């Protein structure tokens, strides 16, 4: 629905688009994510691969969106664009009012550190630091510094149910616990948007369900906007909205709020 509204809109006038997009989103007021005609292609061994081909998307604050698709569908590239980790060839990404494509490297870094929280498939924890230190890591890059970093990290660990494991190294934790630590690390900076890239890809189904329940709780209780990438339909079922991608395009976009409840 938001798609039709913004289609064909000029690059200029982001504010106007934002206003219209929010007007069209029934549940929440401001769109958290707004992409317009996003394209990215790579040349791979002489041929050109269109990783993203004109993706226009609006996600409201407080939504829990799952993006599904087979590998090569462009879902990872979309995630990297949202995360400010990769730049589009054309089109724009506006997140929480910031035009991510036009940010300078140092502002982009601040954007990643303050607006976003990342959760990765392989957890990406620092092996020689304990859970608490891992959770505190993003705060190290805050300017000005965060004086009560340890208390915040402890609070984040409490929120994921690992309040008593702060002094354990990652190797002393199970896979599910490691992913919880990673989620706590993503939460510690109070992000507006959580980006999760196959967060259950390395976990068994029972642990996957626990992690997904945790994400749903964070979404419901704290109103955290979540965009999750997965190829697992069962995982996608936890989301309130499922976007399906293929060949760099969005081929379906359906709400699922009732079932998940």
């Amino acid at each position: 629905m938001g798609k039709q509204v913004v289609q064909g809109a000029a690059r200029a006038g982001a504010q106007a688009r934002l206003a219209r997009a929010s007007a069209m989103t029934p549940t929440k007021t401001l769109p958290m994510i707004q992409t317009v005609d996003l394209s990215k292609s790579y040349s791979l061994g002489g041929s050109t691969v269109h990783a993203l081909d004109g993706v226009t998307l609006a996600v409201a604050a407080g939504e829990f969106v799952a993006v599904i698709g087979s590998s090569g569908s462009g879902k990872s590239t979309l995630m990297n664009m949202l995360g400010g980790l990769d730049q589009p060839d054309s089109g724009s990404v506006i997140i929480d009012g910031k035009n991510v494509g036009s940010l300078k490297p140092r502002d982009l870094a601040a954007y990643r550190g303050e607006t976003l929280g990342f959760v990765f498939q392989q957890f990406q924890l620092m092996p020689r630091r304990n859970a608490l230190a891992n959770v505190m890591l993003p705060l190290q890059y805050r300017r000005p510094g965060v004086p009560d970093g340890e208390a915040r990290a402890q609070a984040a660990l409490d929120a994921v149910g690992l309040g008593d494991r702060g002094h354990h190294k990652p190797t002393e934790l199970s896979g599910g616990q490691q992913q919880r630590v990673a989620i706590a690390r993503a939460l510690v900076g109070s992000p507006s948007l959580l980006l999760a890239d196959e967060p259950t890809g390395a976990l068994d189904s029972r642990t996957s369900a626990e992690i997904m329940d945790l994400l749903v709780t964070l979404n419901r209780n704290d109103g955290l906007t979540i965009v999750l990438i997965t190829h697992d339909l069962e995982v996608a079922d936890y989301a309130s909205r499922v976007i399906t991608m293929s060949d760099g395009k969005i081929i379906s976009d359906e709400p699922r709020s009732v079932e998940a409840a």
Partner: protein
Amino acid sequence: MAVPGLRLVFNAFGSLAERPMRTLLTMLGIIIGVAAVYTMLAIGEGTQKKILESLDGTQARSITVFPNWTRGRSSQKRPYRRLNEADLLEVRALPGVEAATGNLSREYPVITDATDWSSDIRGTDQDYLFANDFELEAGRDITETDLARKETFAVLGQTVVKNVFGGQYPVGAKIKISNVPFTVIGTVAKAPETGWSNGRDRDNFVLVPRSTLRDRLVGGDYLVRNHVNQYRIIGENQKVLDRIEEDLDAILRRSRGLSAADAPDFRVLNFSANRQQYAETQRTLSLLLATMGIVSLVVGGVGVMNIMLVSVTERTREIGLRMSLGARRSDILSQFLTEALLICILSGLIGLGVGYGVSTLGLGGDDIEMIFAPEIAILAFGSAVLVGVVFGYLPAHSASRLNPVEALRHE
């Protein structure tokens, strides 16, 4: 900013401690480099001190005159001619001359009832002790009057006192030099250490009036012509040396029948020229030592760069993660630069300790003096820090420019 700075150092220390063996090996290069620079500079400083010491006393304002040996031997036309007493008196009267002494010496046995001892018998005058930085220990020195009267008086060096008199007070004692009886009138204090004595015994001599030596011992042509082997002239200061040299050149040429155009048959050593040569040698030595030190530091620096590049590659995923968590390029840059710097700072401190340890162990032997001045330590340490910045920058910069997506995917 004080707290993030401390955390940078703390984190860098942690990541170096994770790989202790590798860190130690990398440090070794810098440790050796700094120890080398520090020791080299200390040796340079020690050598300079030695040279300055040798310039103490009258040495730095001395002119020495010899007859020219080589010409006399190779050319029949102009036979070798010695210096003489009359010219010395004229030179002594020149303006700017503080002392002028002549020397005429021969090896003779010194004989007492108890023993005999071969020594250098030097025919000298009242200026000899002063012009050679000797000091009278007991009794009195030879005077002008002693020369005029050809007195059989002797002043003994310490080696002679020890070997002929067994350290007993010799003043007033009778000795024979060859067959001539002499009376000991004084003793000379031990020669000052100059640093360049090279193990020669500088105290084995007996001073007698030059006129007496010629008349009673040497005789022959020396007596007829009043010969002197060499002059040693001390100027009032260094500035007058060149003028004294000109004046004495004129005196000797006139006396020896040489025109200004003739090649002289005598040799003049003006110390002010020597001094410049010393300075030149010292500069070359310092430069050589510093170059060796810098080369070893650069080699160590390349080692640091190499290990930092390996470290960046190994930690590519960590760098990608940090970037995704909000690290700026400058954060990544300072993270790796701090590690390189920490390696070099720690190595620098250890290197200073090693350099100092080498000196206290006396590995240089007695001939090499080392002076570990604070400036030298700061210079050596500073060069280690500089190496850290210069060789740490490239790996740190390449880390800060990694693409976060690719870095996160790196295996």
